[in-house]
């Protein structure tokens, strides 16, 4: 067991670094650049029952220290993911991968997870009840404790693999939603998804993004994410995967002090494709600087005393 090892819902990770869903595809583009097996794991592109093209373009807008995206869950659908993407992914990545799943009905979520459940290299399900980009679906499950619990319970019935529910920050009381998921059988909570945001172009006087609004991510949202991870980790008895604006080894340690067992890195991958490799390589030095022997020792450290 190394200094960076953590245990996420019974599965050991060499380190807590997990590229976040939607910023890493199925890993191929990054495998051209470095050996992605150095990662703890990665969360693959959000998968739905049916293929989806997603939203019209432009889908991207820049913000101070961040960006907005309204991709809209573009993915080839679960059957093609199983038949084509996962076999291709296996050529590059030989560890347990996190399966990120989205849906537009409780049945969708259960169906997609059930289809993926037979894939041995899926270590965890990360069920996204929070994507803000999809009209008439995604958002609503993550914004009420009852709906989030309903999705959790439905997926719980179809899998024995560790089940994480990925929560939206665009709610008034994230703790009650996290607790409802825990009560419904979740093995962990991952948060935060993007914050709903918008930019308007002064030249055209119209929204920059075709979908008008989108998910705001990047360094700017880091303090919001730390706060929400801290609140949720203090209220549930299951592991928390922290994410939102993480871009350095220092950010990873801060997120773990707030209560995260593992840490996802999202938008930063799009700006610096080597960022996860850099973070993993930097962690021992930064741990030394702050007198940390084993990374797992700092989980939730900010809650004590």
């Amino acid at each position, binding site marked *: 067991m190394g200094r960076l090892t953590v245990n996420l819902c019974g599965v050991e990770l060499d380190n807590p670094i997990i590229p976040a869903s*939607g*910023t*890493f*595809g199925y890993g*191929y*583009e*990054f495998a*051209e*650049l470095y050996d992605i097996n150095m990662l703890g794991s990665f969360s693959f*592109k959000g998968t739905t029952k049916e293929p989806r*093209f*997603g939203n019209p*373009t*432009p*889908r*991207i*807008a*820049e*913000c*101070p*220290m*961040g*960006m907005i*995206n309204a*991709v809209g869950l*573009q993915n080839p659908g679960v059957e093609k993911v199983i038949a084509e993407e996962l076999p291709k992914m296996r050529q590059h990545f030989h560890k347990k991968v996190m399966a990120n799943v989205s849906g537009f009905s409780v049945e969708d979520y259960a169906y997609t997870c059930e289809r993926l459940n037979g894939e041995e290299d899926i270590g965890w399900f990360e069920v996204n009840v929070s994507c803000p980009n999809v009209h008439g679906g995604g958002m609503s499950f993550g914004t009420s404790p009852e709906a989030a619990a309903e999705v959790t319970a439905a997926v719980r019935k179809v899998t024995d693999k560790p089940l994480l529910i990925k929560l939206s920050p665009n709610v008034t009381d994230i703790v009650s939603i996290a607790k409802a998921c825990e009560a419904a059988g979740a093995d962990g909570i991952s948060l935060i998804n993007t914050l709903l945001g918008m930019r308007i172009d002064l030249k055209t006087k119209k929204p*920059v993004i075709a979908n008008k609004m989108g998910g705001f991510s*990047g*360094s700017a949202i880091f303090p919001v994410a730390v706060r929400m991870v801290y609140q949720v980790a203090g209220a549930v008895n299951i592991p928390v995967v922290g994410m939102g604006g993480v871009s350095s080894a220092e950010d990873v340690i801060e997120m773990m002090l707030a209560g995260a067992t593992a840490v996802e890195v999202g938008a930063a*991958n*799009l*700006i*610096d*494709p*080597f960022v996860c490799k850099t973070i993993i390589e930097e962690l021992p030095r930064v741990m030394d600087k702050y007198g940390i022997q084993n990374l797992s020792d700092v989980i939730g450290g900010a809650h004590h005393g």
Partner: protein
Amino acid sequence: MKQGIFTILTNQPLTDTVYRMVLKGDTSAITAPGQFVNIKLDGLYLRRPISVCDCVDGELTLVYKVVGKGTEQMSTMSVGEQLDVLTGLGNGYDTALAGSHALLLGGGVGVPPLYMLAKTLIAQGKTVSVVLGFNTKNEVFYEQEFKALGANVTVTTVDGSYGVKGFVTDALPASYDYFFTCGPEPMLKAVYKNTVTEGQFSFEERMGCGFGACMGCSCKTVTGYKRICKDGPVLTKEEILWDA
């Protein structure tokens, strides 16, 4: 794709708004004309994708138009300053599909990638005719550079202040057996309608990453969904679906 640190050798205006920047660094990932690079700039979150105008022996030439914060910042950079650049992005033009007489149609800031393309085609022994379209005389750039390569060059201006009055499609040569184009989308649509052969189009889209990870720049094509940054920016005429 490679990430590298490049040093600015020159950065000079060609017109009021168009600049030419030459950078020194590892250009080994650049394998075809029509590819682009993605540049990190201080204080801006997203990288800025810029098409490759030319690339020779570790020297990368970019011709860019100041259109926003990023390109404005680039225009103020000095010789010796360094930039973090992702190189070798996009598919680029496939010159193997061209016949013996290629027509290159460029509009405004769509002109630069055609320079390395013309150079490549001429090196392959092909005849190259180029039509460069601009709004007005003082926006014209790179006419002499294309001529120096040995291309037949026609310039059009919308207001008729220089060259042929009108759009690039008003100055199509009588014969050519393949075409390549890059420019604003209305121009690309006009080229699509007015050309008689097969050809390749280079598209522009707002990008997140520029290397295929985020799906920020997807488009629908006859052969399925494509990412402008990774599967493009060049699409063949037969695979284009307009406004899809």
